[in-house]
């Protein structure tokens, strides 16, 4: 698994997650994800298209990051790319009703810029 990020000019931070976010893998990236979300200027898009497995620990890391950013007035959204298993995990846990999910990159980044 892996994590990398890039800041784009309009205040959006893109965080890309990769690989197997099982319980062990999610624990390994949770701290980095939290610090990247907390230090973002405004909005964050977390790209899950490279994720092959998403555990409840990974979901917890996403929810924690989204809550921390929201407390500062920012917004975290998710981008998925047709991965059935990732979408199913988001739906099973109800997280898709708490954190906006998009399959279009432009829509995701526009949503991340929207004030909460």
């Amino acid at each position, binding site marked *: 698994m892996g994590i990398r990020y890039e800041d784009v000019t309009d205040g959006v931070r893109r965080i890309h997650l990769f690989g197997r976010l099982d*319980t*062990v893998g999610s624990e390994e990236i949770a701290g980095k994800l939290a610090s990247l979300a907390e230090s973002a200027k405004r909005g964050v898009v977390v790209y899950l298209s490279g994720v092959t497995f998403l555990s409840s620990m990974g979901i*917890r890391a996403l*929810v924690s990051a989204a809550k921390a950013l929201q407390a500062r007035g920012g917004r975290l959204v998710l981008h998925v790319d047709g991965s059935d298993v990732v979408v199913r995990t988001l739906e*099973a*846990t109800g997280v898709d009703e*708490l*954190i906006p999910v998009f399959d279009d990159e432009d829509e995701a980044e526009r949503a991340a810029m929207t004030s909460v």
Partner: protein
Amino acid sequence: MPERVERPRVELTIRADARDARRASEWLESSARDQGVPPAHIVRLDHCLDEVLANVFMHGGTAALASSVLLQLGVRRRPGVCTAELVVVDAGAEFDSSASSNGPTPKPASLAEAGLGGLGLAMIRSFSDDLSYRRSDGQNHLTISVRWTEAA
């Protein structure tokens, strides 16, 4: 037509340690593939296994951590319908993942209200077709089943 078991049940024993969860996953993928379980259903079992083991390691208590965890996989084939059963046996605190009283917490109305508990149980129930549980000899025996159809 009588039920037919394709192959004997296969087993793996792991330490009650998060680092062994990856080994368990690799065993599951390999064993299930060998028994003809379709990839999409291996993924379902793999998610359940990861969540069950996480529960054992985090909530099973000292008895769980001091003991090994036994995994068993079997596949039953009947005309048109196949079932893969993954059994997880641990010595942790008694916990029935299949009981409705241990169900996932209600979904929160907003992100601000969202807690972080119960997500694993929600996933186990969503990814499995059936769960059964028994407590025997001081051990939890959880059976996770997934089913699929197959041309005769």
